[in-house]
């Protein structure tokens, strides 16, 4: 299913014309195209191989102050016409809101240079298969206590996105991402422990199987010795991937759309101190090392760097054109949308500024390297969370004990105010879309032994 950029552009243009000819005042089209290969190994050979090629198209149509949405995975002219008709029919029932509308305009196509995000290399299938097999075999070779590597795999995903509207916007970008993961199950003396690690990059050579194997073996072995802690209050430092996941669970706090809809507990608090003054947080759409770059948002607006929290003071929300109009501020190019969904707001690459506390890892603290159940144990409205966790108890930066079978509970928004210290060294998360130093949160509640 090979389709050129020009073909897609022509199909988009005809779809926009259909919408305007059918009575829309304005229309906007999103297209997402993806090609993917996945390889998994079991018992020393490739056990699963998957390839795919898909395209989705979504449309928003505006009629007066009403918007309608529809999408299709069928690309024939009649299918796209039906999609337009559905969107127009849907628009008749949505609320009238002067803030919503298709507003972003452009004088010509925006075709950013995506060469850094899309490697043209052709990696032979044999090399890819060999890497997939190593993801299973290396942990087992490193430590005989590894009884099975039930989940491992290599993914190569190439994507292309298009945003276009009837006001002249036409943007397209493309990217390719290589990712691999391995998850080892270890057993000794009847006790089982597990750990998973992944590696990502823009080139095949960026993938580090050896590192993944080393980490899963080391950490699973530590977990074999893990024990609960006595219940009580502990200072906590989250391992960076865990911190990223936790912040994502509460990123509603930066969402202007949630504020407009009375779902954001930080609504009305711009300019207020909501966190420790040691905390400054940025959203950086084009950080060079980031794997989540954004050249344009889901409306075609170009985003710039955004300081969300400035020394604990809430400075910005993520805005699209609708929320910007509602709040009477300029849009900051943070519209988010998939072809099949409504317009929302969201960020790109998050950076927490390093601090000056060289002693952030002094004394006694719990380093959390696993938080389960984030999808169900976090309440972004109240900020409450109660989550099972695993980690390590440190005293003066020396590990004393691996920890498991405990839960960590607290209130996220209170936690931000009670930061004890922020370290000086910035690190990337595995995703390379989150960068942060060590952050020490004070006195969180642990239930355990």
């Amino acid at each position, binding site marked *: 299913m090979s389709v050129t950029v020009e073909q897609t552009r022509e199909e988009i243009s005809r779809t926009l014309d259909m919408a305007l000819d059918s009575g829309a005042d304005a229309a906007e089209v999103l297209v997402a195209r993806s090609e993917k290969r996945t390889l998994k190994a079991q018992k020393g050979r490739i056990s699963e191989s998957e390839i795919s090629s898909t395209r989705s198209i979504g449309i928003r149509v505006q009629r007066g102050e009403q918007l309608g949405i529809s999408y299709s995975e069928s690309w024939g002219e009649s299918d796209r016409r039906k999609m337009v008709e559905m969107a127009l029919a*849907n628009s008749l029932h949505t*609320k009238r809101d002067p803030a919503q509308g298709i507003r972003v305009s452009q004088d010509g196509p925006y075709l950013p240079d995506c060469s850094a995000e899309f490697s043209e290399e052709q990696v032979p299938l044999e090399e890819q298969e060999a890497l997939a097999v190593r993801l299973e075999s290396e942990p087992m070779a490193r430590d005989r206590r590894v009884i*099975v590597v039930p989940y491992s795999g290599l993914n190569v995903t190439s994507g292309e996105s298009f945003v276009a509207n009837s006001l002249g916007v036409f943007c397209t970008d493309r990217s390719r991402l290589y990712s691999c993961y391995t998850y080892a199950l270890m057993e000794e003396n009847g006790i089982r422990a597990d750990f998973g690690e992944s590696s990502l990059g823009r080139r095949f050579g960026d993938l580090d199987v050896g590192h993944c194997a080393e980490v899963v073996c080391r950490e699973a072995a530590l977990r074999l010795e893990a024990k609960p802690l006595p219940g009580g209050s502990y200072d906590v430092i989250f391992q960076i991937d865990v911190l990223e996941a936790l912040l994502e669970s509460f990123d509603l706090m930066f969402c202007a759309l949630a504020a407009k809809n009375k779902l954001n507990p930080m609504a009305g608090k711009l300019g207020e101190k909501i966190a420790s003054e040691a905390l400054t947080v940025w959203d950086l759409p084009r950080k060079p090392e980031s794997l989540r770059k954004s050249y344009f948002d889901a409306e075609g607006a170009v985003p710039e760097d955004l300081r969300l929290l400035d020394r604990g003071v809430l400075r910005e929300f993520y805005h699209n054109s609708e929320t910007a109009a509602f709040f009477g501020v300029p849009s900051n190019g943070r519209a988010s949308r998939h072809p099949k969904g409504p317009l929302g707001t969201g960020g790109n690459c998050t950076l927490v500024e390093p601090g000056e506390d060289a002693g952030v890892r002094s004394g006694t603290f719990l380093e959390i390297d696993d938080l389960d159940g984030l999808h169900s144990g976090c309440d972004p*409205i109240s900020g*409450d969370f109660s*989550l*099972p966790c695993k980690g390590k108890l440190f005293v003066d930066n020396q590990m004393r004990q691996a920890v498991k079978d405990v*839960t960590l509970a607290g209130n996220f928004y209170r936690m931000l105010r009670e930061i004890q210290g922020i370290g000086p060294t910035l690190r990337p998360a595995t995703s390379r879309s989150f960068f942060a130093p060590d952050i020490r949160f004070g006195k969180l509640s642990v239930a355990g032994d």
Partner: protein
Amino acid sequence: MLDKQIADKVLEAGKSTGADYVEIFAEQSYRSSLALLSSEVENCQSGIDAGVGVRLVFGEQVYYGYTNSMEEVDLIALVFAQKRGRGEGAAVPALRQLEINQVHPCLEGLDRDVPIPEKIEFLRLLDQFARREDRERVAQVRAGVNQTRQRIQVFTSEGTMAEETRNYIRCILSVIAADGSRQSQAYEGPGALKGWEFVRSLNPEELAGMVGKRALVKLGARSCPGGNFPVVLQSGFGGVIFHEACGHALETTAVAKKASVFADRLGEPIASSCLSVVDDGTLQGEWGSSAFDDEGMPTQRTQLIKDGILKSYMVDLVGSIQTGYARTGSGRRQSYRYAPASRMRNTYIEAGPCSVGELIASIPYGLYAHKMGGGSVSPGTGEFNFSVDEAYIIRDGKVAEPVRSATLIGSGAEVIQKISMVADNLELGEGICGSVSGNIPVTVGQPAIKVDQILVGGDEE
């Protein structure tokens, strides 16, 4: 949808690669969703998902490919992109349409849709009744309904042709209560393998009142204490404890890889003797049901555990090849974008002899989990967790004050040994389960049960 003659040619192409088994899954799904927020229609959208997945099985090796195209040339190319054809291979038997023995009737699906203004009116009623609980403190209400009409075709190199149209509907209600700087939310999501007639069977006043009250109770609740307690889990969505604690570990997805704590334990006592558990894809009109599984096999009722003894796993085609166990019609997938895997359907603990009152009266100090949230599990270690959405302290055999932010964690293999009492009020609750073959509708269910000891996480101030 997919022409039978094209399917024949794709199956032949697949067999020419030397595959032992070839399967085509074609799908066309029409989806519609409507959402009210701040008492206005926030979102009204619809769309069509369409595509084909082709699976080639060589012994225990699986090759899978999918595309949006239903053209013969693209599907043949998809086959040969996975494996080169040798131009030979066993001929494919003539395709025989499987008769549907189970029927899940749908009166008002998206092909006979109810006018949108009628749907909006129902959502407005939910909004009004929820706000009526406390006009000052109910700060926001989100009411929505999502419907899907999924048409699927499964063609196999064994000559099977199965076609089914599944109509799903789910009503979503979320209420946020606020009091000064404090906020809380509550949620319900009833659903069924039915059309709009399911919504007609709901009582909006009762549903909205229940959710509104729960949000207000949570608003005033103190933090849950942490520690090891006896816990009573109420019926219905309380069944998520078995789903997370044990269910995933009984899928051959995990068992075949020996990544399950229950692998190689058929016929052994794995649970308390008062526990019997069923996974049933035949329950008429239930959210997790279907006539066929997504491999074209008629669904079944599978007794997983009987009186504490492990009787069966949930077995899909590849799981059957890997383990030698007979298939149970448990092959499921979110869409054509996924190869199927063994998954749960409607999974429930069977009713027992006790009353709910007896369970609570047996506990001097513990927790009553009236409404569960979601959870997750690591099948390889058996460690599970789930959140409690509405909970109360039990004190001296009586339900006492409400508490919030409770999480239950433990080991699946241990917790099912600690179920000591099972009540007689079996109910089911709807949810979405995410795993290797995507997000699928499932129900969980149980009567109220008592677990003698489980670790409760809390943030008592």
